[in-house]
C-alpha cells in the first residue's frame, strides 16, 4: 500500500503547512494548506516563497481542489502541489492533469491499482497542466506545434 | 413487523431476508425485529446483498405486505408490465400494490 506518492525529483517538503490566513499574515512560512472553498488566488502574490501547497479534499466528491490546483499552476507556481484527504486511486490521473505532483491520501492506495490507473489512458481530450498533448493537437500537428 | 430488503449484488434482483437466507418472494420475509441493521451490515460485507434497508410491513392471511407503495412495487415489479411481475397470472396484483 502507498501512504505517500510523489512525482517530484528529490525529497518531499517536510515543513508543516499553515492555513491560508496564517500564511498570508506572516512572511516566514513556505508551506500552506488550502481548504475546500478557500480562494487559491490569495496565494498568487506569494508564489515565489512557497515550496509546498497542500490542497485538502474533505470528500472525494468535492472537486474545488482541482480548480485550485490549476489556478496555481496556470499562474506559474513550480513548487510541490500535494493532494491530501479523501483522495481515491481513480482520481489520481485527473489530479495529475490539474497539476498535483504529490499525494497524501487519508487511506493508503493500492500500488497495483495506482500503476494501472496511471497507465490506463494513452490519450486525453483536453489541454491541461501536465503537458500531455491532447488528441486535437495530435490530429493537427501542423497547426498546433504538437 | 420489520423486514429487510435489498438487491442481489450480482444480479441486481430485489431480495427479501427470509430468516436463513435471501428470497425473491416478499412472502418469505422474516420479521427481523431489531436485528435488521446488523443483518444488513453482515450480509453486505458477505457480498450477498447491496443497498439493504429495513422497512415496516404487515402480515395477514394474504401474506407479507410492505407498508409503503414503493416497496410493494419493488416486491412485485413494474405495475405497467404485468408480464414481468412476480405474479403474472394474478389479476389482483395491481390492487395489492395500491
Amino acid at each position, binding site marked *: 500500500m502507498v501512504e505517500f506518492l510523489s512525482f517530484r525529483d528529490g525529497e518531499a517538503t517536510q515543513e508543516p503547512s499553515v492555513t491560508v490566513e496564517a500564511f498570508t499574515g506572516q512572511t516566514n512560512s513556505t508551506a500552506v494548506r488550502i481548504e*475546500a472553498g478557500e*480562494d487559491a488566488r490569495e496565494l498568487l502574490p506569494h508564489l515565489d516563497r512557497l515550496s509546498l501547497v497542500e490542497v485538502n479534499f474533505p470528500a*472525494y*466528491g*468535492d*472537486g*474545488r481542489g*482541482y*480548480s485550485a490546483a*490549476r489556478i496555481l499552476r*496556470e499562474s506559474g507556481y513550480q513548487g510541490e502541489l500535494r493532494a491530501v484527504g479523501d483522495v*481515491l486511486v*481513480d*482520481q489520481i*490521473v*485527473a*489530479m495529475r*492533469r490539474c497539476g498535483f505532483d504529490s499525494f497524501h491520501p487519508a487511506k493508503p492506495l493500492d500500488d497495483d491499482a495506482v500503476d*494501472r490507473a496511471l497507465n*490506463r*489512458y*494513452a*490519450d*486525453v*481530450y*483536453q*489541454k*491541461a497542466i501536465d503537458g500531455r498533448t*491532447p*488528441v*486535437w*493537437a*495530435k*490530429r*493537427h500537428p501542423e*497547426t*498546433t506545434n504538437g | 413487523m420489520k423486514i429487510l430488503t435489498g*438487491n442481489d*449484488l*450480482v*444480479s*441486481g*434482483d*430485489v431480495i427479501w431476508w427470509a430468516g436463513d437466507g435471501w428470497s425473491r418472494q416478499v412472502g418469505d420475509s422474516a420479521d427481523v425485529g431489531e436485528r435488521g441493521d446488523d443483518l444488513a451490515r453482515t450480509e*453486505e*460485507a458477505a*457480498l450477498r446483498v*447491496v*443497498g439493504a434497508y429495513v422497512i415496516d410491513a404487515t402480515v395477514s392471511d394474504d401474506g407479507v405486505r410492505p*407498508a409503503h*407503495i*414503493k416497496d410493494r*412495487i*419493488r416486491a412485485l*415489479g*413494474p*405495475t*405497467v*408490465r404485468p408480464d*414481468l411481475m412476480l405474479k403474472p397470472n394474478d389479476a389482483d396484483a395491481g390492487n395489492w400494490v395500491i
Partner: protein
Amino acid sequence: MYRYDSYDQSIVDARVEEFRDQVQRRLTGALTEDQFKPLRLMNGLYLQLHAYMLRVAIPYGTLSGKQMRKLGEIAAKYDKGYGHFTTRQNLQYNWIKLADAPDILAELATVEMHAIQTSGNCIRNISSDQYAGVSADEVADPRPWAELLRQWSSFHPEFTYLPRKFKICVIAGDDDRAAMKLHDIGLKLVERDGKIGAEVYAGGGMGRTPMVAPLINDFMPEDEIISYLEACLRVYNRYGRRDNKYKARIKILVHEIGVEEYKRQVEEEFAHMRTLGLNPPVEELDRIRAFFAPPAYDTGLSEDIDRADPAFALWVDRQVAAHKVPGYAIVNISLKPLTGIPGDASAEQIELVATLAEQYSLDELRVTHAQNLVLPHVKKADLYAIWQKLEEAGLAEANLDLITDIIACPGLDYCALANARSIPLAQKIAQRFAAAERQAELGELKVKISGCINACGHHHAGHIGILGVDRRGVENFQLSLGGSGAEDTSLGQITGPGFSEDGVVDAIEKVTDLYLAERESGERFLDTYRRLGMKPFKEAIYG
C-alpha cells in the same frame, strides 16, 4: 455522422477495461458499495427500484442503423427485451446484471458508443435538435459543436466532481426543439458578419427550482468556445453551492449572485483562460464538420405523396415534417402508442427502426427529448412503404405534439427516487383522449409528467404539466399550466390542490373543455392560457 478515429476508440476501449477492473474489484469485495458507487455512476450504472439500470449515451441524439441495431441486440441479450428512450435523448436498460455491465459496454464500444458520464456530477451527454442538419431554419448544423463539446467534456480533469450534474444543449435555429434554455448551459448558433458563433445562455434548469437561462454572451466565436466554457465551469466549480444538493445546480449560483455578477466573473476568468491555448484549432472543428456534411441526396425526386389510404394520409399530416432538400421528408416515429409506455421500445421495434434507417434514411436516425424517434432523410416516394412497416410493428401512432404524445419519466414503476407512478397516468390520459378527432381538435398540446420533483418528465415545461407527490404514502398529482420548452420558453404555474390519478385526468378534461370554448382563431391551448391567465382555468377545475 461522426466516426471515431483510433484516438476516440482507444479512449472508449480503455474505459471499458477500467470499468471491467472496477466491477471485478466490487464483485470480489475489494471495493465497498460506497467506493464503487461513484465509479459505476460515471459509467451510467444505477441501482434502481428493481435492479441495476444502465443509461447509454446517445450523443446529441444521433444514431446509425448499426448502432441502433446494437441497442436492440443488447436489449434482447442482456435485458428483458426492451429499452426506454429518455428525455435526455439517451437509452436506459432496466434489468441489467452487474456482472454483465462490462460486456455490454464492450459491445457498445464496437459500434462507437459508451455510457460515459451519463450520471454523476459531471458534464452529461450533450443534447441537440433532432432536426439538426435537415431543418431549413438552422444557420449551421449544431452537431459538430456538440461533438467538439462531447470530446472536451469527456474525462475533463477539472470538471468531473462539480457541485451537481451539468447539462449542455446546442441548437442552431430560432425554432427550439430541445428545450435549450432549460439547460445548465444552452448554446444557440448564430451568424454574424458571415461567421458562426454561439449565443450562450447559463443557469437554466428544471428540478425543484426551475429557471429559464438568461443570455450571458451574445456571440462566442467557434475558436474560443472551449476556453469560454472552461471559464463558465470554473466559476461554477469554485462557487456553486455544495452544502445542499438541492441548491447545487448552476441556476442557483447565477440566481443568488445575479446574472451580471456571474457574467463578470466568467469574463474575468475568460480573459485569463483564453491565453492558455485551451482551444482546439479551427481545423479540428472543420475535421468534425466534414463528418456531418450533407449526405448524397438524390435529385429530381417526385414531391408527390399518394394519399389514397386515409390512415396513411392522417399519419403523413401528423408525423412528417419538411426537409430542406426537395423530394425528401423527415419522419417522426411515435413511441407513444395509446396503451403503451412512453419512450419504451421492444428489441424487435428497435431492430426494425434500425433497418428502416438503413434502407430509407441514409443510415441515420435521431432520438428526441420528447421520447420519440426520427428518420431524418426519407424520400417522399418511400413514405408509404415505411408507414406500412411501422403500422405492422405498432409504431404508426399519429399523435406528434398532440395530447396523447405524453412525455413521462419512468416514475415509481421503475425509479427509486419517484413518489408516484407516471406511466399509468399517461396511459389513462391517452385513453381518455384517444379519439383521433378529439386529439386533432385540441391541436398542439404538450403534456409532461414527472414522478418526482427532479422533473425528468419536464413537467415545468408542459403546456399541461403533472408532478407526482407522495401524500402520506398515497400517490397524489399536482397540475400546472402554461409551461413551454420551445423557443417561447416558460415555466408552468400550479393550479392549486393536487388530485388522485383519476382526478387529474378529469381536471385535464375541464381545462381542455374551457380551451375549446374560449379559444380564438388559430390559438393553441398554450396561447389561450397565456391570453386568459390562470383564473378561468382554476375556476373550471375547482369550481
